[in-house]
């Protein structure tokens, strides 16, 4: 179980003493992912998904707020003390090639964390070998053929599985998959998605899935939650299917409208939403962050910032003064 409240992260452009520029990557994000649960973060490029993922995985510090891992608050702890807690959360990188050391065989790659663990728990060398084979099997790889190889001898999908297997060596409670499939061939993507779901079901690992392709979020499990992030703020949050089927925030609606329609299989939604302009970091921070791009901007939007909340008649949390359902997503022809 991991929860975060009011997580803020601001990047200062390094090396520029005189002309420092600040990037407000996260502006007070709350989240909570239950044990064995699933959550997906979606949003445009640069809206802070990766940053949040890295903070959750303990790879990045945060400026404000609190993160609690299994009831232990992280903020008071020193970095060294945080480490064992964050080890329960493992990151799966986007690029499966760079995530593996090209000079080490898969065996070596798996051996290092396992032997560390064996030392901590006083287990034998045989256990290490056994466990290495086990995690590989867990991700659907044949240990016999894979162990001795170097990363460049594996396909993208296999590499990504190895990355996952490596994360499993420390028996994590949560996997953070940052665009874990976007660099994998189309035909293989589903395999990885299914694997993640499978691991959830079988091992009770919770999964945090970061993507800008909303559709993939569905494949993590129907009990998952969807967080729509915009410019460092969560603008809509709720069960995956609810949010996808009935988005209320215009930003979520824009995202969903943008998904290409498989003409011939699907028919487009009736009320697609197109933002007025494209994302521009330099847009004002006043009021609703989406206001400038929002086709439905109301009076309050310009100078008041809507907070994530539940309003009547809307099952999911959202941050919009004027939530309204619109039919934006394409539906299969067969449903007609």
């Amino acid at each position: 179980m991991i929860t975060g409240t009011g997580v803020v992260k601001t990047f200062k452009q390094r090396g520029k003493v005189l002309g420092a520029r600040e990037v407000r990557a996260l502006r007070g994000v709350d989240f909570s992912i239950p044990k064995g649960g699933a959550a997906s973060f979606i949003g445009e490029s640069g809206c802070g998904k990766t940053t949040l993922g890295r903070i959750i995985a303990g790879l990045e510090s945060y400026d404000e707020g609190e993160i609690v891992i299994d009831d232990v608050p992280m903020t008071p702890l020193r970095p060294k003390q945080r480490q064992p807690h964050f080890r329960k959360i493992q990151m799966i990188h986007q690029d499966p090639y760079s995530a593996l050391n090209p000079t080490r065989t898969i065996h070596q790659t798996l051996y290092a964390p396992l032997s560390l663990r064996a030392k901590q728990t006083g287990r034998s060398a045989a256990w290490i070998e056994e466990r290495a084979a086990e995690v590989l099997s867990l991700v659907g790889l044949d240990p016999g053929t894979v162990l001795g190889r170097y990363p460049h001898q594996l396909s993208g999908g296999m590499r990504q599985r190895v990355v996952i297997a490596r994360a499993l060596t420390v028996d994590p409670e949560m996997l953070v998959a940052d665009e874990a499939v976007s660099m994998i061939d189309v035909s293989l993507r589903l395999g990885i998605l299914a694997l993640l779901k499978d691991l959830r079901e079988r091992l009770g690992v919770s999964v945090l899935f970061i993507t800008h392709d909303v559709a993939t979020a569905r494949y993590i499990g129907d009990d998952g939650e969807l967080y729509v992030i915009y410019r460092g703020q969560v603008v809509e949050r709720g069960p995956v299917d609810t949010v996808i089927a009935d988005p209320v925030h215009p930003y979520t609606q824009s995202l969903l409208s943008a998904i290409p329609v498989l003409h011939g299989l699907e028919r487009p939604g009736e009320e697609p939403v197109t933002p007025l302009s494209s994302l521009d970091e330099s847009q004002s921070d006043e009021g609703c962050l989406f206001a400038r791009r929002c086709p439905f901007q109301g009076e309050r939007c310009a100078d008041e910032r809507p907070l994530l909340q539940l309003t009547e008649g809307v099952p999911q949390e959202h941050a919009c003064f004027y939530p309204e359902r619109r039919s934006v997503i394409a539906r299969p022809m067969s449903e007609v």
Partner: protein
Amino acid sequence: MSNQAPGVRIDGLTVVYKTPAGELPAVRGVTLTLEPGSITGIVGESGSGKSTLALSLLNAVQPPGRIAGGSVEIDGLGDVVGLRGEELRKARGKHIGYVFQAAQNSLNPLKTVGKQLLDLGRSHGVDDLRGLVREAKELLGRMGLDGARVLDSHQHELSGGMRQRVGIMLALVLNAHLVVLDEPTTALDMITQANILRIVREVHAERGLTTLVITHDIGVVAEVADRLAVMYGGRLVEQGPTREVLGAPRHPYTRGLIQAIPRLTGDIDEARALPGRPPTLVTVPKEGCVFRERCELRMDVCDTVDPEPVADGPRLVACHAVNSASASTTVATKEHA
């Protein structure tokens, strides 16, 4: 050349790359016709030879590759494969606009867009450079950009979506009527992608172009293309009108590909990955069907005989299993749905 959308007839095109293992074909015996005024989409996984094919349209396959056989007939230009030197150069840009796969980096980082536009004009002997700039501004404005500002910018001052639009502008500004877009939306996020695709569609219609869109994302093709061609291992395995192919894919690869796309709606259990891995230049089978190793309909004949594309109305499929089946009975692909 007329201001008409040209037709393109690719016939038996084969392109090989020189590798340590000898010359290997990245595109093999591809035959494809782009109807004048149509948008054709080519999909295929990484390494299936899409970019190579697209480059062949401009006779621009880069060493160590070369066009080893076949022809590319473009209305008003003739066989591009035979073009050389100045003729070829003039054809590029003026007759064929090409939007680069990595349009993100397709601009000279040291020069403003405007200067590069002028370079382009000079290269093609445009006398009225002012007119060219005007035209460019108009095009950019058409795509929702502030033309004057963009022309005054360097590459690094533009966002990915803007660069992509600049790429399209440069492809069209000389009035080319055949436009090739190689992965126009890869590395862009959803909203920008939707935007670009809309622009492609609109500009195509307004200007009366023949457009070829290359992508690995079926969604993109489905959005924009009239016709769809599916490539696998350097071969065209299936082609036909987009809606028909998507609605009733015949080739097992096409079917697998469509099934593998995560969708927003519908039964998620229906989706599944294709087994195996896409071939590379080295691992693609030299004879027989290129897809057979991942194919659920694999037959003995697939190991030795390369299936010929067989036409059925507007559609072509190159699969022994499908073709033999369709020869006896009519389509029987709905058994699962």
